[in-house]
C-alpha cells in the first residue's frame, strides 16, 4: 500500500508586491511506497519545501489531494514526524524533555517520559547530553535531538526539510550515515528535501528531480545502488552525471525563456 500519495498538486501564491498570481507548483503527482526513502531534489524556489509542508499539513494545495496512509491530510499531526532545517527545539527544555515533548503533551509522568526518551537519545548517539539545554549544543547535536524527537512519535512517515544543510561537511557525512542506519532499523518511510545531488544519491531509494518556476517533477529516478554507497563508484557517478545534465538543461531552458520574456521570473512567496 502506498504510504504517501500526492495527486495533481498545484499551488498558486499571491505575489502581493507585484499584484499577480504565481504558479509555484504545477500538477505534481508522486507516490511513495512504504519503507521508501524519497529525496526531493531541486534548487531553491522550486517548491520542494512547499510540497513537504503539504504532506506535513502546514500548507494546503491550491488544487489536488494529499493522502498519507490512505487518509487525506487536513493539518499537522503526530502520525507524520518532521525534522526541520533549524532544529526548532524548545530552548527552555533539556535534551531529554525535547525528545519526549510528545509524551509531555500526552500527559505522561516524568519518570516514564525520561525512560521513553532514553531509547531515542541512544539511537542518535547523544548519551551524556540528556540534561543539556539546546543553547549548549552544536548544530549537529541539535539536529540529532530533532531526529530523535521525530522518531519518538513512531510515525508512519518522517519528513525532513534540508536538516543537514547548515552542518559542516564532516558532520553532514556522519549524520547521513546514521540516518540511513536508523531508517534501515526503524523501517519507516522518509521524504527528504535537499538541494544537494550527492546527498540525494547517498540517501535515497528514489530521487525526484524537480524543476523551478513552476515546480514540476522532471524525472523520478529509482536508485538500486548497494549500501553503504560509494560516492566515487561508477554507478554513483553515472547517476550524478545524468542528474546534473537534467539540471543544466533546465537552467539553459530558463535562460532562453528569460530572454524571450524580459520580465524576470520573480522569487516565490515561500522559499523552497
Amino acid at each position, binding site marked *: 500500500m502506498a504510504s504517501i500519495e500526492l495527486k495533481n498538486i498545484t499551488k498558486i501564491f499571491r505575489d502581493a508586491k507585484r499584484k499577480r498570481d504565481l504558479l509555484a507548483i504545477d500538477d505534481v503527482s508522486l507516490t511513495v511506497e512504504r519503507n521508501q526513502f524519497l529525496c526531493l531534489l531541486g534548487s531553491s524556489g522550486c517548491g520542494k519545501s512547499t510540497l513537504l509542508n503539504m504532506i*506535513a499539513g502546514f500548507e494546503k494545495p491550491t488544487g489536488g489531494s494529499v493522502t498519507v496512509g490512505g487518509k487525506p491530510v487536513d493539518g499537522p499531526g503526530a502520525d507524520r514526524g518532521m525534522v526541520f532545517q533549524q532544529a526548532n*527545539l*524548545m*530552548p527552555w527544555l533539556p535534551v531529554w524533555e525535547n525528545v519526549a*515533548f510528545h509524551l509531555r*503533551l500526552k500527559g505522561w509522568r516524568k519518570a516514564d517520559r525520561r525512560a521513553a526518551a532514553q531509547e531515542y537519545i541512544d539511537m542518535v548517539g547523544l548519551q551524556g547530553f540528556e540534561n543539556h539545554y539546546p*543553547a549548549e549544543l552544536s548544530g549537529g547535536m541539535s539536529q540529532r535531538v530533532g531526529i530523535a*524527537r521525530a522518531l519518538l512519535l513512531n510515525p508512519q512517515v518522517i519528513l525532513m526539510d534540508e536538516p543537514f544543510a547548515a552542518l559542516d561537511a564532516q558532520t553532514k557525512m556522519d549524520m547521513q550515515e546514521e540516518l540511513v542506519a536508523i531508517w534501515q532499523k526503524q523501517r519507516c518511510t522518509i521524504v527528504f528535501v535537499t538541494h544537494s545531488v550527492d546527498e540525494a544519491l547517498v540517501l535515497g531509494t528514489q530521487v525526484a528531480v524537480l524543476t523551478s518556476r513552476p515546480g514540476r517533477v522532471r524525472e523520478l529516478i529509482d536508485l538500486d545502488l548497494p549500501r553503504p554507497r560509494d560516492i566515487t563508484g561508477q554507478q554513483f557517478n553515472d547517476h550524478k552525471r545524468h542528474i546534473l545534465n537534467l539540471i543544466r538543461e533546465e537552467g539553459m531552458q530558463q535562460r532562453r525563456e528569460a530572454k524571450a520574456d524580459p520580465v524576470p521570473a520573480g522569487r516565490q512567496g515561500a522559499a523552497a
Partner: protein
Amino acid sequence: MTALWKSWERAVVPLFILVAWEIVSRSGLLPAALLPPPTVVLHAWGDWVFGFDETAQGNSGRWLADALSSAVRVAAGYGIAAVSGILLGIAIGWWRWVERTVEPTIQMLRPVPPVSWIPLAIIWFGIANKPAIFLVFLGAFFPVLMNTIHGVKTADRNLIRAASMMGATEQQLLRHVVFPAALPSIFAGLRIGIGAAWMLTVTAEMVAVKSGLGYVLWDSYYFLRYDLVLASMASIGLLGYATDGLIKLLMSAALHWQHGSTLQSREG
C-alpha cells in the same frame, strides 16, 4: 582581594552619597532642620524600628507594622495585576479577535495616570486597604500586560510548528510553548510592575489610608519631622530593592535555561 572588592562594590555609591550628605548638612549651608544629616535620620529611623528613646515619638517602635501594612497592599495589588496581566496578555497576543475587541479600550485606559483614579477609588472603596490595592493593581497591571503581549507575539513560530507537528492542541500550545517562550518578556514586565506597585502604595497611603510607610511619610511632613520623611523614603527604597531582588531570584530560577546564552545571565 578582588572578591573582597566585589562584595563592597555595590556599597561604594551609597556610601559616597551618605558621606557627602553628612558633610553638606553639617556645614551649615542649609538650616539643619531642612536637611537633617544621615546620622540624625538613622537615629530617628532606629527608634522608629526598635523604639529605644522615643525620638520618633508616636511612631516609635512601629516600623515593622507600618512596613507590613504597606507590603500587604503591594502583595495583594501586585498579585492580582500579575495574574490578570499575564492571562489577558496571552489572550490578546494569541487571539486576533480578543486583540481587536479588547486592546483599544486597554490602550485608552493605559495613559490615564493611576493617581488620577484616587478620587474614584476613595468613593468606591472608602478609606482603607481597598483603594490602595486598587491603585497598586492599576500601576502594575499595564507593564505586565504590555510585556506579556510582546512576549507572546514574538514567540518563535517555528516552535509552534514543531509542537503542532507533535500533535499539540491549541490549549497545549499556549501552555507548553507560548507561555514559556513569553516568560523572559513577562519577567521584564513583572520587574517594571513591582516598582510601580511600591510607588502607588505610598501615594495611596499619603492620601487615602491611615497606615503604612506612605502615611508616616506624609504625617511626619505635617509635623516638620524631615528626618522621619527621609527615613520613610529610605525604607520604601530598601523594600522596593528587596522585592525586586526576590523577583530576580524567581526569574533566574525560571529562566535558568538561558544560563550562559544571554548577557543578562552573566549578571552577578
